[in-house]
Structures are given as structure tokens and as C-alpha cells.
């Protein structure tokens, strides 16, 4: 009993964090779903959703209800177990990285020493889910989507890690809080502009978004890995995609944009979350913006770009960083 009382605060903390994580994941999906459609609309000279609620703000709620009401179709020759399991596998791990993100000085689930590793390790599970889902669908287009997703994600994880590693060398810590603290005079985007650029390109590929949305390239592979998914199992993939966008943008904010630092507001230990969210959503706006602006690259060009340009540049950048850190 005594042990129970001693771990009770931790348990409560975990529960609160989990609830907050769920709120963020679903809230983010609602906001981004609406924002993406509205932005896409305005970029395309049309108003976007307008019917449900003022300026269509309830559209996503209605869509959510619709998706929940839809039948989950499992194709006849698919592997039913894996087919149902894949969306869950895509969706479940996105909560954990939220626990270690420092939204402000005081708002953080757990400040782990290996915070970055937790995020990157769990972010990779999404790929496994795509692999399982596409494979289990027993559809050639899905299979193609999976081929592309796996090779693309594996390739782009390397420059992403290398660019983050440059910052880690400078701060000597995987803890996200320490990284934010290290940026008190200048943000790392000023010191490490190349790393930021490489990271930015990599996250577009990591989150499978246009112009690097080859795993779901609509005009080539109909819908890629989620061709066979319907209803809620489809929307779990979409939820996971938005949550992943949120996570990678948060990591960029923490590592390059100074986390929650900004012009001080009252109760800054808490209100720093405003700056944090502002930065995260600016990055996500950027992701949406380029999605609706550029055509899709070809697969071999995408891979060449990674192996021939991003990785060498990231390595050189890392090397220079290490040398500089050693010298200074």
C-alpha cells in the first residue's frame, strides 16, 4: 500500500498526460483538418467548406460522425487480423511523444534524458503500421505504396537524425528541456540554418505529404497504402498523419526555433505554450502551403535527392559542428 501511495502522484500525472495527449491529438486533427481544407480552398480560389456552421467550422465534426458511421470493409483476400490492426498501430504510438514535449517551461509530461530518442523511436512505428496495412490489404496499389513508403521513410530518417544530431552535439543532451534552455540567447536556426533546412525537407518526406507524397500518390497509385481502408480505420491513418505532423513540427520548434521562448507574457512558465503553438502551427502552415503548391516528384528523383544531396550535406554539417564544438 505504501508503494501505491508513493507512486500515486506519478500515476495521476500519467493519466492527466494521457488525457491531455488525447485532447491534443484529436484537437489537432480537428484544427488541421479544417485549416487544411480552408487553406487549400483559398489557395485554389475557392472558399472551402462553407455549409456546416459559420464558414463550415463544424464540417470536421460532421465528417468525423460520418466516418464513424461507415462500414469497415475488409477485402475478401486480405489478412483480416493485420488489416484491422494496422490503423491502431499507426494511431496508438502518436500519444507517447507528446508526453516528452516541453510545451512551456512548466507544461511538460516528463522530462526524460532520452526525450529525443523516445520521439524518434516511436515516430518510426508509424512506418511499420503503413507496412502492415499495405501488405495486409492484398492490393497491388497498396503494395506499391508500401514499397515506396518504406524506402522513402528509411532513407529520409537518416538526414533527419543527422540534422538533429548536430544540435545534440551542441547541447550535449537528448533532453528536450535542455535543448530549449540552451537556446536562450540565439535560436539554433541561426547557428544551424543548413540543419534546419535539411530537417524541414526530411519531415515533408517523413510525413508522406506532397510534394513527397509518393506512398499515396493519387494519380499513380489511386490512394497508395490506404486504398482499401474505409470509415474509421481510414481516418485513424489520417489522425496519425496529422499527429505526426504535429510532432515533427514540435521537434523542429524545440530544436531550431527556441521552443516556448519568445516575448515574455504574464505567467510565462505556462503562457509560453502560446509561442510554442504559434511556432508549431506556422511550420504546419508551411507544410500545407507547399502541399497545395508543388507537383509531385518522381520516386527515383526523391531518393536521389536524399542519398546524393541531403545525407552528404547533413554529414558535412555534422562534421563541421563537431569540429567547432571541440575547438570553441
Amino acid at each position, binding site marked *: 500500500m505504501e508503494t501505491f501511495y508513493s507512486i500515486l502522484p506519478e500515476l495521476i500525472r500519467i493519466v492527466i498526460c494521457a488525457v491531455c495527449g488525447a485532447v491534443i491529438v484529436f484537437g489537432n486533427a480537428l484544427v488541421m483538418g479544417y485549416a487544411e481544407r480552408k487553406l*487549400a480552398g483559398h*489557395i*485554389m*480560389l*475557392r472558399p472551402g467548406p462553407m455549409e456546416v456552421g459559420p464558414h463550415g467550422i463544424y464540417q470536421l465534426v460532421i465528417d468525423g460522425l460520418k466516418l464513424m458511421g461507415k462500414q469497415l470493409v475488409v477485402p475478401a483476400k486480405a489478412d483480416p487480423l493485420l488489416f484491422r490492426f494496422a490503423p491502431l498501430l499507426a494511431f496508438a504510438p502518436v500519444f507517447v511523444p507528446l508526453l516528452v514535449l516541453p510545451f512551456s517551461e512548466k507544461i511538460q509530461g516528463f522530462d526524460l534524458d532520452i526525450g529525443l530518442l523516445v520521439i524518434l523511436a516511436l515516430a518510426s512505428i508509424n512506418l511499420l503500421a503503413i507496412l502492415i496495412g499495405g501488405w495486409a490489404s492484398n492490393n*497491388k*496499389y497498396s503494395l*506499391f505504396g508500401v*514499397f515506396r513508403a518504406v524506402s522513402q521513410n528509411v532513407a529520409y530518417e537518416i538526414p533527419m537524425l543527422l540534422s538533429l544530431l548536430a544540435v545534440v552535439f551542441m547541447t550535449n543532451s537528448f533532453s528536450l528541456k535542455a535543448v530549449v534552455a540552451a537556446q536562450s540567447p540565439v535560436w539554433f536556426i541561426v547557428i544551424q540554418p543548413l540543419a534546419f533546412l535539411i530537417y524541414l525537407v526530411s519531415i515533408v518526406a517523413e510525413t508522406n505529404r*506532397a*510534394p513527397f*507524397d509518393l506512398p499515396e*500518390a*493519387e*494519380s*499513380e497509385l*489511386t490512394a497508395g497504402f490506404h486504398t482499401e481502408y474505409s470509415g474509421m480505420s481510414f481516418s485513424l491513418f489520417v489522425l496519425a498523419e496529422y499527429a505526426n505532423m504535429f510532432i515533427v513540427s514540435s521537434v523542429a520548434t524545440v530544436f531550431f526555433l527556441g521552443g516556448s521562448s519568445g516575448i515574455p507574457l504574464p505567467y510565462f512558465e505556462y503562457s509560453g505554450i502560446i509561442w510554442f503553438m504559434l511556432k508549431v502551427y506556422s511550420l504546419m502552415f508551411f507544410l500545407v502551403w507547399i*502541399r*497545395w*503548391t*508543388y*507537383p*509531385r*516528384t*518522381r*520516386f*527515383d*528523383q526523391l531518393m536521389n535527392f536524399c542519398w546524393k544531396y541531403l545525407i552528404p550535406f547533413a554529414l558535412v554539417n555534422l562534421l563541421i559542428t563537431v569540429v567547432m564544438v571541440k575547438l570553441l
Partner: protein
Amino acid sequence: MSMDVKALEDDRHHRYVLNMGPQHPSTHGVLRVLLELEGEYAMNLLPVLGYGHRCHEKIAEFKPAKSFMPNTARMDYLGALIYNHGFAQLLEKAAGIEVPERVEYIRVITSELNRIQSHLLWYGAYLLDLGAFTPIMYSFDDREHILDILEDVTGSRLTYCYFRVGGVSKDIDEKFVTGTRAFIKRLRSRFPMYEDLVNGNIILQKRLIDVGELTPHTCARYGITGPLLRGTGVAYDMRRAEPYSIYSKFDFEIPTGTKGDCMASFMVRFHEMEQSLRIIEQALDGLPEGSIMAAKVPKKLKIPAGDYNSSVEAPRGELSYYLVSDGSDVPYRLKVRTPSYSNLSVIPEMCQGMLLSDVVSAMGALDLVIPEIDR
């Protein structure tokens, strides 16, 4: 030797067949292509046609030639007026009907507007194939103006049946002329935007340059015409090569490319819109007054025995009607040579060994309208 065959057979085990279409986002309708793939490389392609076959040639043999006019619009739903034009011209040629000058001007203006709207739709749809979602909305925005203008005079927005044997069904009015002039101004002001936002994009250029190269000789072997042929550097346009209607009166250029790849035909189509605008402008300036119907068009149009051909430049290439008449008012045989049919037939040779994404680029560059192929 036997080892080689064995190796080849083993090789083929790596391949598998992907069925693209008839319901696929980038086959533009009901085209089906069987792709034999090795990894993502298409080693063999087999287009399967006929899903939209509506027996137009058979129908033509059963009713008076005059009443076949609406059918022509249903073949190529994007170039309906140009198909009208070719057919009206065929019957006029066969029956020896003189067409008033005003009619020719109206036909040229509306046909060219039709050509621009076809190219605008292609522009958006092609970029959609390449994964750029936005340009189609811009080009549809422009296209909408043409549809509005044409709707006023023709009464329909897509499958026009506006031309009659010996004339047109309705005269154009002041509103049409001012509307068209305003449209010309508008579209001209939009071209720089298209050039800046789309044509110069590095991703687009990487996707199109050196993809699906054609040579003039390949075009001759397959009978490829239209922008694809002009992309290879051959300035062959029916409006110039066999000037029909009053096209010889107008001053316009035939845009050509050099390499014959997808980028070349892309730019050819893009510049053709400007040339069409020039033709319309000149035609509007020179628009004469007069009747919109030939003086005496017999109700029952008897076509003297013999065979007749009428070729026009459709948005996708050369369109030929070949009519065999036995002297009655019903055609004995009508063959429609549609440009996409010949253009598509090059696909197996053009796309061999290409990446799947490039197959999509190449097919988009053909600017396919499937009902025109299936007829």
C-alpha cells in the same frame, strides 16, 4: 541458349501485372492499361479499349447524314465544336453548298474558343496527374468564362451542336463579341502567372523533360498528329497544311518544340492557346455582316455518290471524316479518324521501360479523351 531462356523465364517471374483502369484517377475516363511491371518499371503495356464504344459509325449508316451532327459532339466532348466543324464541312463539300462568309467567321471564333477550353482543361488535368492539385482550379476558372460565352450562343456547355450544314444555328450578338474580347484580355493577363507558377517549376521540369521522347519518324509510323507531333519539331497543323474554312486569312504561328518529349508537347499546347487567341482577335476584327445560313440547303440532303474526306485540326490532332456515299441522303459508310486513337497506340512503344510515374506523365501528355478513341 536454353540457359538464356531459362534466365528470361526466371526474370519474368519477378514481373507482375498491374491493372490500371478502367477506373483509375489518371486514365481520364474508361481506358484500361495492363502494365507488366518489374519493380516500378513498366516492361510491357497493353491498352484495352472499348469501354465507351457507342457505335457511332453504325448509327451514321442508319440516319440522314444531317442528323448525325449531334453524334459528332459526343465523340470528343472537349472539342465538340471542332468535330461539328469537320462534319459540317464534309457535308458541305459533298453537297457543294457555299457557306456565307459570316458563318465561317463564327465557326472559326467558336472553334478556337473550344480549342482553348480543351487546352485549359488538359492543362489542369495534366498537372493534377503530376500531383499539383491547385492549377486545375485556376484553369477551370478561365475555362468557365469560355463556357459561359459559348453557352450564350450555342445553348449548351459541353456537347455543342451549334453548326448546321450550311450555317450555324444562332447568330452571335454584341454580348458575345464584347464577352470574347474581355476574355481574350483576361486570359492574356493570366499567362504570365501560369508561366511563373507552373511552367518554370523545377519539379515539373524534372518530371517532363526527356520523358516519352518521340521522333518525327515514330509519329509517321503511328500516325501521331497534333501537339505531340509539333513537339518533335514538325510544324504540321491542318489549319496550315490543308487550310480549311478561312484559316488561310489569319496570321498565326504554329508553335513547335524540338525534343519531342513531354515538356515539348506541354509547351506547344500552352503556346497554342495564345495563337488561338490571336486568331479569334483577328476574326472578331474582320467579322462581316451577313446571313448565317446558306441560301439553299435542301431539306433532304442528297450526297452525290463517291467518297469524301474532311480533315480538321482538333485539339488533339488531325480529325478526318471519311464518307462513302451511294447517292442517297444516308451515308453508306462513315469513318471517323480520331486523333487520340492513333496517338494512344504509341503508348506500348513510348512507355517501355519507363517508371510508373513516367507512364502517368506520358499518358497525360497524350491528352486523352477516351470517348473519342472508343467512338
